[in-house]
């Protein structure tokens, strides 16, 4: 895990959290396999060809998107408890999107069994280009993949949002509550200082 750590600037360190143990949905497809996509209930997905190679840097923050995998994101169809084991975390950065509406889910952050933070994580519907909440467009695509192929009339968006902890805190678990319309594609921890 250590080699994924990315140091940027003088006093900020980022750590993209591997999420492959938790992924359960295929939201990104190449055109020849777009029938496999199941991001939306109707089988729409984001076009893989358009995404840069990971880590994708957004606002200086690196994100690992599991482009090209059989499953590439976490559909929050159940409560998801992500194990992280990290010290002095200040922020948790998320890439995600919703299908069939704009939604939020509650996020609780723990240090072992001690609750150290919580917030609401908002994401806008993937079929829109303007955010409905405090999220920001991470990547805007030129077309949507449907089960049948390219659909150029709708240009979907992957969104960015962030949760702040009150102070740099050791954390062990990020608990994302169930909301089957919400999908998480990547999350990256931000430390307050360079970890030696």
């Amino acid at each position, binding site marked *: 895990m250590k080699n994924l750590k990315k140091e940027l600037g003088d006093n900020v360190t980022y750590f993209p959290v591997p999420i492959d143990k938790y992924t359960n949905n295929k939201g990104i497809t190449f055109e020849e396999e777009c029938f496999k996509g199941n991001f939306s*209930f*109707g089988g*729409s997905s984001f076009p893989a060809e358009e995404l840069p190679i990971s880590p994708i840097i957004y606002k200086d923050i690196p994100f690992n998107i599991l482009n090209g995998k059989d499953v590439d994101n976490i559909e929050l169809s159940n409560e998801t408890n992500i194990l992280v084991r990290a010290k002095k975390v200040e922020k948790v950065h998320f890439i995600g999107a919703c*299908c*069939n*509406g*704009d*939604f*939020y889910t509650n996020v609780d952050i723990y240090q072992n069994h001690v609750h150290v933070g919580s917030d609401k994580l908002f994401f806008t*519907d993937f*079929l*829109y280009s*303007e955010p409905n909440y405090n999220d920001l467009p991470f990547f805007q695509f030129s077309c949507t993949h*449907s089960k*049948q192929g390219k*659909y150029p*009339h*709708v240009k979907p968006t992957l969104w960015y949002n962030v949760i702040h902890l009150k102070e740099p805190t050791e954390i062990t678990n990020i608990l994302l509550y*169930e*909301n*089957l*319309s919400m999908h998480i594609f990547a999350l990256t921890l931000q430390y307050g200082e360079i970890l030696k």
Partner: protein
Amino acid sequence: MMEFTIYKNKYHNCRNATISAMLKRLGVKLDYLWYQAGLYYKELPEKLVFSPYYRELPADFKQNHGINYNEEFVVDVNEFTQKLIHLVKSGHHTAIMVDIFHLPYSFYYNQNHDFHDIEVIEIRQDKAIICDHYYQYYGELSIADIRKAINSTKENFGFHECILYYFTLNDYSKNEYNSNDLLKVVKDNKYALLGEKKDDFSYFYGVEDSITGIQTLPIIYNKILSIFKLPQNEANLLLSEIYKEFKDISNSRYNLYIYLKNFSKDTLSKHFFELSQKWGITANLILRASLSQDITSLKDKVLKYILEIEQYEKMSVIKLDCEIQLLSN
């Protein structure tokens, strides 16, 4: 061609999105137009009706906003098409109900039948310029495709007539809203949630044999429970129909949230935001169940949310009542 913008608002069904687009162009303030957040349930022989509306839109628009909602119903498709062409050429942007199965730009072209509203902007010989605000398409559609798509609403959904509508403003059309308007909306929604059958609550499917207000929720709970016990295919079909109506109820709570925010009623508006989320999540669970081969795994989640919604809707009545007290003092 005139400058034209697609109206994007995911908190409307296709009809309300089309209506909003057309009214926005006439200068109507949309944030004060959508506020009906009641509850209505009725079992018809051909379908189950769940609805947030307690007043039909033409009456609501006329009484409270000075907007004429002009509707025309024509049996013959050719006569209807001629009427449509005449109206558009005489300067009225006109909305029509079509079947998405025959719309070449649609996700659902030659795949799925569903009735849907689009706006016709301009007629050019054998083509129309249309705007599908809901599916975000602006461009050409041949008159032949339009005719097919209109006719299909009769063939596939049992409508006896083709439907078009357009809007005009009265001399007394309203563009300023104040606390008296707010008080009326808050009162109407409270009465609607209490299930009171007021004279100007002209429920589209009538009050006879219907259930209105929060009393609807235990009935909805039992109905959903009984649907989950049906054979898979029957249950899938019913759930896909119910999904749209739950989504519309979710939208109604969101639109009331926006309405209340305009009057800086932050606490009350947040309550309706939370309600729109709960109805929206439930709608999506129902949609997932409608597409699933294993609906039983979703049954408990749907029922849990309906119980939560019942508690929240009971709180709505109390919160609306508190607001009435505040506004009346």
